[in-house]
């Protein structure tokens, strides 16, 4: 799960970049194969040095293969959800788009182990949870989406995504946030499970953190003049941006 968390955190900003969609469908396949070969070697080096699961098998080659292969699946899932690939399009460019999006995801997979401190953040024992966690969530969300909010991509995606995909984005964001904070073996997991604060029950904390990410996304979009009120298009843009924001919010909570 740490690998999956790393893959999404590093991969999502790239998947929200239209040049990746364009070049993935247009780059010569030989160039993409070269990129894949290079990134596999980098994965192998990172799996040896860092890895997504230090206590697992200590088989860096196997870890690199698993991380690399699963990154293709994660990229395909995300691209399908964001309608960047679909079953109607020609099959050949699909490979290019998935492959190019999977490169940063695989790097994130290999770095999964070092995403957050193993014993929880240094302030972990001082933090009382609740408001502190939500502030950390807001900070993480801003850091991850500040470079996405002013771009065209959230607007473009929001214009093209239907209701089902938007709901899918919300559900995926909630599920990933929950798994990252309460299931992945990052530090501070037990402290969170044992916290007495009512906000720190896993489901409630996940929901509140998503609301914070949603509010941060709406605020950033409003400050760039992209949302004007409580209408459908504004809501769609906010949901699209809230997806990476919720991942940033999860990382923010893991850091304290």
């Amino acid at each position, binding site marked *: 799960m740490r690998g999956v968390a790393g893959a999404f955190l590093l991969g999502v900003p790239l998947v929200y970049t239209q040049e990746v969609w364009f070049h993935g*469908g247009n780059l010569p396949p030989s160039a993409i194969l070269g990129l894949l070969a290079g990134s596999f070697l980098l994965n192998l080096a990172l799996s040896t040095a860092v890895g997504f699961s230090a206590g697992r098998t200590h*088989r860096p080659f196997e870890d690199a293969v698993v991380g*690399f*292969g699963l990154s293709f699946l994660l990229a395909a899932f995300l691209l399908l959800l964001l309608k960047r690939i679909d079953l109607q399009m020609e099959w050949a460019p699909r490979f*290019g788009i998935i492959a190019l999006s999977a490169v940063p995801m695989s790097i994130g997979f290999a770095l999964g182990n070092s995403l957050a401190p193993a014993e929880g953040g240094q302030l972990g024992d001082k933090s009382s949870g609740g408001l502190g966690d939500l502030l950390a969530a807001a900070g993480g969300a801003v850091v991850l989406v500040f470079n996405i909010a002013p771009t065209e991509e959230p607007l473009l995606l929001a*214009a093209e995504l239907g209701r089902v995909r938007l709901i899918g984005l919300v559900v995926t964001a909630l599920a990933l946030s929950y798994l990252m904070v309460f299931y992945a073996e990052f530090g501070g997991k037990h402290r969170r499970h044992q916290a007495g604060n009512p906000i720190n029950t896993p489901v409630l904390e996940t929901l509140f953190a998503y609301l914070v990410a949603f509010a941060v996304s709406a605020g950033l979009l409003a400050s760039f003049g992209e949302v004007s009120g409580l209408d459908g298009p504004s809501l769609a843009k906010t949901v699209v941006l809230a997806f990476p924001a919720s991942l940033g919010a999860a990382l923010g909570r893991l850091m304290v």
Partner: protein
Amino acid sequence: MSPSRQTSASKKNRHKAEGGESSRPGPDENRGLKRNRTPFEWGLLATALVVIGTMVIGLFVYADKRAGGQAELRVEVRDTGRQHEGGPEVQLTVRNTGGAGAEQVTVEVQMGPEVREVTMIRIPKDDELTATVIFPAGTSGTPEAELLSYVQP
């Protein structure tokens, strides 16, 4: 010093008192080198190998297809959300992902009952052309585009 660091330091001291380096588990043991893979790990490994194989084979076949020298045109259309004198603006993009250029590319763009035809003179290989279509005021619906014809020089 943070509590976690204190814990770590006290563990080290206790460890030394109990016999030092010789009783410390080796790095291989810590990382589980000797244990067997679980069925779940075997499953992950098999899935990853199948996916990597599919991707690599797919990209090789794609490369072979592109080398064939045929134009491959992909048409995309989207409502930009902008209005011109009350009429919606639609952006049409035609990408040539094939191995040869295409000329006289004619695309039909439809929005609601309104239909427009756009002709692009030439789209080189690995390139794209974008055109803007403005429909009359009051037109609504999801824009759709269909490639009607093209000539391969």
